[in-house]
Structures are given as structure tokens and as C-alpha cells.
């Protein structure tokens, strides 16, 4: 485990460093002609981008791990429960219809959307539902939220809404300011800090609600706390950099192999792995031809889909055998 921690920390530092300096050509060019501008480029453009990629990745990893522990299901994650789509709907409604421009207020809209999606999931599927029920309910909510988002964009007062949002909705960290990054990451960090404190309780929930309750944890309250904190963290991040699929599924899955299967202890490793994954995906995106932007979500989905199918196939085997 200690070796795993060192590896994770090392990878985080490398990815963060690479994210700040890639592509190196423009920085070294500027350093020769205008060193001050080179510094500004790193500080004003690369720094918020790096922080957001790492932060959003960490949020997806940790909330994914918390949701999976809460729903006792390795497939629950911010995207599959519909909370990411709900956050996008909330942010679009706030930004294009309510005319909200303040990043913090938009983050609140995102959190409200994510919270509504999770509340709907509870209402439709319940917490200890079968995998199929959970997935179908999540898919239904994600599809409905997606359609709602499209409708709001199509009818938005601004004719450019659809065009603006294409890049944002599938995930992008380009051209975000430091205040925007702060609006996403400060609430997210607070929520994640509180989530991390539930690790022990979530481990006990692995033995079932009754055992957790007999020890003095309150399963229902714990589930509500996880939902609210997840909504805040995911909503704030999605409102600034869009909904990104599969990181919240992959990261906890990988993290649990480091914690010998314990779902609660996996929270912090999942955050580290999520941060590394998403920042790496954002590095890959920079290989796109000049003038063309590839949404980060395309990369994470390309990597995540096979893994998702593999987990589903494995679960089917354990259920039928």
C-alpha cells in the first residue's frame, strides 16, 4: 500500500507538471521573445486548466467511490446515476435561461441539477436496488436530462447557445479563468473533505445497513449526506468544465484493488486515480491538430466503455454462477 501511495503521488506530480508545460514549444518560444508573457501563459491559461483537470478528476473519482459504496454497486458513478447530466442541465438552465453569469451561482445551479437527478434516482430505484434497476433508472434520468439540456439550448434566447456549449458539455478545460476554477474547486474540495470523513462508515456499510446501524452509523442519513455532497462537488465542477463520462466509474474500480476491496478506504485513492486519469486525458486532447478541439469526454469514454462492458460481463458471471 505504501508503494502504491508513492506511485500515485509520483504520477500526480508528473501529470500536473506535464499539464503545466505541454505544449512546451509555445512556452520556450515566448521565453525568448517575452519572458513575462510566457509566465502569464502558464499562470493564466495552463494553471487553471491543470487545476480543473486534476480537481474534476479527483471529484469524479471520490464521488464515484462514495456512490458505489452507498448503492453497494460497483457500477454506480456520477455519470451512470445521471448526476453529471443533471448538473449540466442545471448549469444550462441557469446560464442561458436565468441569465446567471457569476461562476459560483452557476456552480450552485449545477449542484441543484445533480441533486435533483440523484433524488430522482432514489425515488425510482431506491438504494439497495438490483443492478439492472439502478442502471435503467440512471440511464432514463441521464437521457431525460440530456434531452432537457438540448431543448433548453435549442430554445435559448442566445442563438449561439448550441454552438457555445458543444465544446463545454462534453468536457473542456480550455480558456477557463482562475476565478472560474476557484468557483468549481473550492466547493468541490469542501464537499470531498467531508466525504472523505465518511470512509469508515462506508466501509462498515459493506457488511450491510443493519451492521452499520448496530455500530452506531446511520445508513439512511449517511446515504443522504453522500448524495448532497456528491451533488455539490459534481455540480460545481460540471458547471465550469462540463460532464465527463467514465472517470467516476474507472477510478474507484482501480482504487479498490489497492484497498483490498474496501469501498470506503478507496475514497482517497480513487480521487488520486481520477485526477491522474482526467489530467492525462486532457494531455492527450492537446495532440489534436491545431484549431481543432477534441472534448476530453471523448477520450475518457473511449477508454471507459470497454471497462464498463467488462465489469458488466463479470457481474453477470458472478450472478449466474
Amino acid at each position: 500500500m505504501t508503494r502504491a501511495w508513492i506511485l500515485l503521488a509520483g504520477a500526480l506530480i508528473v501529470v500536473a507538471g506535464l499539464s503545466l508545460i505541454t505544449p512546451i514549444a509555445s512556452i520556450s518560444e515566448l521565453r525568448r521573445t517575452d519572458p513575462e508573457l510566457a509566465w502569464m501563459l502558464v499562470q493564466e491559461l495552463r494553471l487553471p486548466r491543470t487545476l480543473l483537470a486534476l480537481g474534476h478528476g479527483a471529484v469524479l473519482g471520490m464521488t464515484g467511490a462514495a456512490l458505489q459504496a452507498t448503492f453497494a454497486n460497483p457500477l454506480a458513478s456520477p455519470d451512470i446515476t445521471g448526476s453529471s447530466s443533471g448538473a449540466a442541465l442545471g448549469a444550462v438552465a441557469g446560464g442561458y435561461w436565468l441569465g446567471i453569469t457569476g461562476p459560483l451561482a452557476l456552480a450552485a445551479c449545477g449542484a441543484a441539477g445533480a441533486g435533483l437527478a440523484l433524488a430522482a434516482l432514489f425515488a425510482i430505484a431506491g438504494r439497495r436496488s438490483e443492478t439492472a434497476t439502478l442502471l435503467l433508472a440512471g440511464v432514463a434520468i441521464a437521457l431525460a436530462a440530456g434531452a432537457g439540456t438540448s431543448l433548453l439550448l435549442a430554445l435559448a434566447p442566445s442563438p449561439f447557445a448550441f454552438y457555445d456549449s458543444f465544446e463545454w458539455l462534453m468536457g473542456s478545460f480550455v480558456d477557463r479563468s482562475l476565478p472560474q476554477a476557484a468557483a468549481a474547486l473550492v466547493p468541490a474540495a469542501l464537499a470531498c473533505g467531508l466525504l472523505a470523513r465518511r470512509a469508515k462508515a462506508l466501509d462498515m456499510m459493506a457488511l450491510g445497513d443493519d451492521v452499520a446501524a448496530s455500530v452506531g452509523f446511520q445508513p439512511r442519513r449517511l446515504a443522504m449526506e453522500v448524495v448532497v455532497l456528491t451533488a455539490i462537488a459534481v455540480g460545481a465542477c460540471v458547471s465550469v468544465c462540463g460532464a465527463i463520462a467514465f472517470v467516476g466509474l474507472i477510478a474507484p474500480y482501480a482504487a479498490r484493488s489497492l484497498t483490498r476491496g474496501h469501498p470506503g478506504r478507496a475514497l482517497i485513492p480513487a480521487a488520486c486515480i481520477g485526477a491522474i486519469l482526467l489530467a492525462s486525458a486532457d494531455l492527450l486532447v492537446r495532440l489534436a491538430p491545431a484549431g481543432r478541439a477534441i472534448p476530453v469526454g471523448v477520450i475518457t469514454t473511449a477508454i471507459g466503455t470497454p471497462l464498463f462492458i467488462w465489469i458488466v460481463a463479470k457481474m453477470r458471471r458472478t450472478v449466474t454462477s
Partner: protein
Amino acid sequence: MTALLNATAISVDGRLSRTDLHLRLPQMIAVIGPNGAGKTSFLRALAGIEATTGSVAIDEEVIAHAPPSRRMRLMSFMPATRNVVWPITARDVISLGLPSPDPARVEALIDVLELAAISERPVNHLSTGERSRVLLARALAARPRLLLLDEPLSNLDPFWVLRVLEIVRAETQTSGSSALVSVHDLNQVAAFDRVLLLDRGGLVADGAPQDVLNSSALSQAFRIEREGSGWKIREPA
């Protein structure tokens, strides 16, 4: 002498009417009753899981006010379901029963419940009987003052039924604790010091095994009666 357990006026809406239970001496107590009599509700209410009213104190410490690490030393509950979703190893599941790490204790339980061969296997891949033993070890781990075991003998083969009774007996004797064990098989009841009979959400008999087994309350609750050394269905009156 202080009371080991003072449960007053515990109840669960619709399933358990107001019930009191007081224990002074360390004892092994069987909880019996027909299906749906309220055995599980009774144990869950004592464990502080869903009691709608009443209070439970162990060694005069109210469990509702005890933090998790303390509560694990006061009482443990083993539910009737043996489901564990996550692939946690048997050894780690046992450790979850401890408020602070104690590898020697885990090792001793692995030994006594003969789990060495499966201790590194994920618990969700074990047979139900094996999982029962692992979950029992989890419940015993912190040497709690009160053990609440819901059907620990179901899913076990005859050897393990007898062995688990022995192990629980030894645990209660060495640590001076008590165990409340819900049991379906009336043949096992003789191994206990005291028997509580529940019917329709209420306590209807409480006494030594032979007295309760021969009581009319038991024959009424289960709708069976003695026939030689066995039982037969009671003729409708």
C-alpha cells in the same frame, strides 16, 4: 451488582410490542418463535437499529449515546442475511469487527473457526456456510458484552452447528458476556441457559429450556406438540 443489559420498553411499529429485557448474569439465551414472530425485530431493536421507542443500556451505558468505537465493545449484531457485495477478504471482514487493529485476535478467530484455508479469499466468493463462520468471527472479534446473533446456525452443517454453540459458549464464559441467539431448530435449545419465546410480536414465555419446551405457550405459538422425543402437528382444538 450492575445489570449487564437493561432494555426497557423497546418496540418496533407493527412488529414488536413494548418489551423489557434485563440480564444480570452472563448467559446464553435462545430466542425462539414461529416465522414472523418478531425474533429479528427483537434483536434489531436491542441492537439499536430500528427501535421506535425505549432504551437499551449495557453495563449501564446507553448504547444510543456511545460512539461507534465504544459501541463495538458493548454489543455486536450478526444479521440473518449473509450477503456481502464487495470482494473483501475473509480476514479483512473479521478485522472490520474491531475498533482498533488487533492481528492476534483475528488470527485466533481464524484458528478457532478453521478459516485459515479461506482467510485470503474474497468473502463474496465463499459458500454460505463459510460466509456464516466469517461473519460470526466478525461479530465475536471485539469481545462485546452482548452478542446478538440472528440465526447463526442456519446454513451450517451438523458439525458446525454444535461447534458454533461451543464457541459462543466459550466466548461468553471467558469474557463474562451474554449472547442472545435466535434459533429455528428446537433440538438446539437445550444447549442454552435460558429461552425467550416470542409470538406475534410479543414475549410469551421466558425460562429454562425444558420448562419453555414443555410449556403450553410453546405448543400454542408453534402449533405443534410433544410426541415421544419428537414433535407432531397439534390437532386443531
